[in-house]
């Protein structure tokens, strides 16, 4: 049992209780002396009345001081905490935020019910714990978290209604972000009890592998955008968890719902045009993973345009991943969509992975070379790799010197290649910045002429969040071997046990890159390729070794052409980009420059939406915040113009819950307590919720004292 003050700062106002005493002392000192004819009658009164007046003065002084003290204490919100403070069943006002997981993994079925339905039932039990005047918020944990009751409700029925209105989604889980949102909402509450309930499967990837966690350690993470429109603001979540010295810290309860953890899922698919073969021939490489505790042998099927065109068998050990490969020919003159499919299991959502194949088109590529004459520079090799036949059928390279970059027409080139450019002039820098901001692709090839200090100061940090640390030299060369090259970009470039051609790298820049970037790394050498997305939606790739015989074998290798085609094809924003969109993200599809009119989108579930045309870098259509996995069909005036594929976040496929030992550090400053859904919540919650605010008592006391003061000051009772 203890007394705390929720607005401790107001305790300083208690000094106001001294004001009447000070005024009394000052006015006593200033009292006037008056000559009077006789004190005869005053002396008579002295015996009874004046003594009473003095007594009354002292009483008034005490009462006035007590009034100010009571008001100051009421403002400071004194609170008696402890088991006996509230009496049986009573509790101080409480604010409750329910973080309810409606992510894809919650669709798991168990005993004829899914986990999400169980979660809603738990939410209703939490609503039962609310008394009159208690406040409730509801936040969903699927990325991005949404505050369903952002303003809070004081009605348990409204909370139940909001819970009933929720549905399981295909989104990934982001518990830290959802808890931050909930904390932001609770931050506005001055109630004594503030509680967060996290109801869900407590999937480990929802905590550890969430977008927030990827950005860095939790305590250092910058808070994400607030879905409620400002409740969390830019404050550190720790601030929300506990107000300085005032409102007690938020209590957190984890209510884990358990279901089958064994799951098989398709976590990625790469579609690549086969080179050196027949036109329209594509390779499909699909990564599947086994999260169950037993070995699995299963068929993996390929569907294109709704028709099964391939099947492969995959055998996976517990916890292992494997790749299923297919090849199929499609008509390159139009869009195609398809998916890779696994047999049904506990979590059906991740058993399909969708992709699209855009029609082939001729793309102009701007290759920027250093000023001056050098017949065998990097640009020379890159141009030949881009257009080996010299007919410009797929890529049509246009070569300009660095000094002429600023005057080039930007819209014409979806991708620019900086081929060992030492430095750019101001106009060139601006051209690149605008190109990237508009969503254009950029390939940076570093080499002998690279002015490391210039690139670190002007371009690389802004474009890729990377800086060059120095040059690594391996005169004997480091070979790109299939075992070393696990990057999807290179899938399909392996024939049997070896790459289609041998490549050795002898020199490469050592780079310090943000971990979020996609890095192709060679053991013993380090990264040779860094890929990153830009704010404009485009991509930037940096090849850290020069396309120059002194740096690597690339110029003479048969590996250069497919590598450059894969890389530039990806930067161009073609099929790969349209297939990498996850639920919750914005879906972008490239459309023709000539396409005009309202862009209607047919959603996978049968609904429709309108996409926004984006005339930047290259023309495209954007559908913001897609919520369903599947194929999205874009059309203008009922004429199909593009297809887009949206998939479930592969992290959602790993159903393993967070380990008990890890829970302690997950809540930041919020102490998380695990409550079994089978136990009555009342036992855990109400016991901790006891407490009684005393400010009303002090307000009543002040009112009684004011009445007493008025009575005493005006009456002749004393």
């Amino acid at each position, binding site marked *: 049992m203890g007394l705390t003050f929720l607005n401790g700062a107001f305790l300083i106002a208690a000094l106001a209780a001294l004001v009447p005493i000070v005024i009394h002392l000052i006015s006593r000192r200033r009292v006037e*002396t008056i000559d009077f004819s006789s*004190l005869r009658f005053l002396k008579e009164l002295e015996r009874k009345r004046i003594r009473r*007046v003095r007594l009354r003065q002292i009483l008034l002084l005490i009462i006035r001081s007590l009034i100010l003290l009571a008001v100051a204490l009421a403002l400071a919100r004194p609170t008696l905490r402890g088991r006996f403070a509230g009496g049986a069943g009573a509790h101080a006002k409480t604010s409750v935020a329910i973080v309810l997981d409606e992510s894809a993994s919650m669709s798991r079925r168990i005993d004829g019910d899914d986990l999400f339905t169980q979660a809603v039932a738990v939410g209703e039990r939490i609503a039962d714990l609310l008394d009159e005047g208690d406040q409730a918020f509801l936040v969903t944990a699927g990325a991005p978290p949404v505050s369903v009751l952002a303003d809070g409700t004081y009605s348990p029925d409204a909370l139940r209604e909001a819970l009933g209105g929720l549905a399981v989604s295909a989104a990934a889980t982001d518990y830290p972000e959802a808890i931050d949102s909930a904390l932001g909402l609770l931050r506005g509450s001055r109630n004594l009890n503030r509680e967060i309930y996290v109801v869900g499967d407590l999937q480990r990837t929802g905590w550890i592998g969430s977008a927030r966690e990827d950005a860095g350690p939790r305590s250092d993470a910058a808070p994400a955008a607030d879905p409620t429109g400002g409740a969390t603001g830019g404050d550190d979540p720790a601030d929300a968890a506990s107000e300085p010295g005032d409102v007690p810290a938020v209590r957190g309860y984890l209510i884990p719902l358990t279901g089958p953890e064994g799951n098989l899922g398709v976590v990625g698919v790469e579609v690549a045009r086969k080179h050196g073969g027949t036109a329209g021939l594509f390779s499909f490489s699909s990564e599947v993973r086994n999260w169950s505790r037993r070995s699995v042998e299963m068929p993996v099927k390929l569907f294109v345009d709704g028709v099964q065109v391939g099947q492969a068998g995959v055998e996976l050990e517990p916890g292992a991943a494997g790749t299923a490969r297919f090849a199929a020919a499609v008509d390159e003159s139009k869009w195609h969509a398809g998916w890779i499919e696994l047999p049904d299991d506990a979590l059906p959502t991740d058993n399909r992975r969708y992709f699209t194949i855009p029609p082939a088109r001729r793309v102009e590529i701007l290759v920027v070379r250093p000023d001056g004459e050098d017949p065998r520079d990097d640009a020379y090799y890159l141009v030949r790799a881009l257009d080996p036949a010299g007919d410009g059928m797929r890529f049509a390279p246009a070569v300009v010197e660095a000094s002429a970059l600023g005057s080039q027409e930007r819209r014409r080139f979806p991708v620019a290649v900086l081929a060992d450019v030492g430095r750019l002039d101001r106009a060139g820098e601006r051209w690149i910045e605008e190109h990237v901001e508009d969503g254009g692709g950029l390939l940076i090839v570093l080499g002998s002429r690279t002015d490391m200090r210039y690139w670190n100061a002007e371009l690389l940090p802004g474009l890729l969040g990377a800086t060059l640390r120095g040059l690594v030299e391996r005169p004997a060369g480091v070979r790109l071997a299939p075992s070393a090259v696990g990057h999807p970009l290179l899938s399909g470039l392996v024939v049997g046990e070896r790459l289609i051609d041998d490549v050795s790298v002898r020199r490469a820049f050592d780079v310090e890159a943000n971990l979020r970037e996609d890095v192709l790394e060679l053991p013993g050498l380090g990264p040779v390729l860094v890929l990153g997305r830009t704010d404009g939606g485009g991509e930037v790739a940096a090849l850290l070794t020069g396309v120059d015989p002194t740096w690597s074998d690339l110029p003479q290798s048969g590996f250069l052409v497919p590598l450059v085609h894969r890389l530039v094809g990806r930067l161009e924003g073609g099929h790969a980009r349209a297939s990498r969109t996850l639920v919750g993200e914005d879906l972008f599809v490239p459309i023709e420059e000539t396409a005009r009119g309202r862009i209607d989108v047919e959603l996978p579930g049968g609904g429709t939406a309108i996409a926004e045309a984006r005339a930047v870098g290259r023309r495209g259509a954007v559908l913001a915040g897609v919520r369903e996995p599947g194929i999205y069909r874009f059309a203008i005036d009922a004429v199909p113009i593009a297809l887009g594929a949206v998939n479930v976040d592969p992290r959602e496929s790993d159903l393993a819950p967070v380990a008990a030992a890890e829970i302690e550090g997950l809540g930041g400053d919020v102490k998380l307590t695990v409550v079994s859904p089978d136990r009555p919540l009342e036992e855990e919650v109400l016991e901790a919720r006891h407490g009684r605010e005393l400010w009303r008592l002090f307000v009543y006391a002040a009112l009684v004292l004011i009445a007493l003061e008025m009575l005493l000051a005006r009456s002749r009772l004393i």
Partner: protein
Amino acid sequence: MAEESYRRFLDPVVVSKLATMELRARLVVEGFVTGLHRSPYKGFSVEFAEHRQYMPGDPLKHIDWKVYGKTDRLYIKEYEEETNLRGHVLLDASASMAYTSGGISKLEYGRYLAAALIYLMLKQQDSVGLLVFDEAVREFIPPRSNPRQLHLLLSELDRAGPSSETDIGLVLHELARRIKRRGLVILISDLLDDPQDVLPGLKHFRHLKHEVIVFHVLDPRETEFGFDADATFRDMETGELMTTEPFSIRRDYVEAVDRWMTHLRRECGESRIDYVPIQTSTPYDRALFSYLEKRKRLG
């Protein structure tokens, strides 16, 4: 001088601004007389003054039957009064009489009132004496009616200033012993002494068959206690101090003063002493009327 101009000299404040005591006395009396419909100097004595028409209630013995025989109308004979009244004006000059809340002090008021009474009495051929006292008799001028008496008494009044404590009872007893012939005793005082001492002194005069008028002079503040802020009060006679909150005790104070004055009035009434409470803001005519009433009864 117009009647209205004279009447303003009944205002104590106006009178206090006049230069000499004689002027003050004369103007007060003239101001008072101009308001009367008949001369205060006319009475029923031996020296005939004039006839006036009989009014119901006039004593039949004053009807001039000769005139009735000639004119068949009833007339009353009026005479210049010839008096042998001996008046004593007793002025309290103790320190408490110096109190003023802003206008004129009680002592000033008393001095001007005494002067007016003396002037009026001497004009009526009465003999008047003056006694100025505080805790003892400071000055005593025996009553006379000769023309020099006015100047003498007014000069004495001019000099009378506040002094020390008061002991009215003692002074009254002493004076009662001194005055052998019975007459009129006019006491001008704030009576701020123990009533147990004051009243026996007054009754002593009555016992000796003197007629007594008490002009009880008080400042308005002494009856209303109109002080606002907390204050320390200093007794003007004893120098004693007392701090209090006037607002809180005002009602009790006023009640106590009322009780005191009621007690004085009752006791005086029982002893047939005229008790006239007046405040320093009261016009002088009220006091002068009281005197004339008394004088008339003395006939």
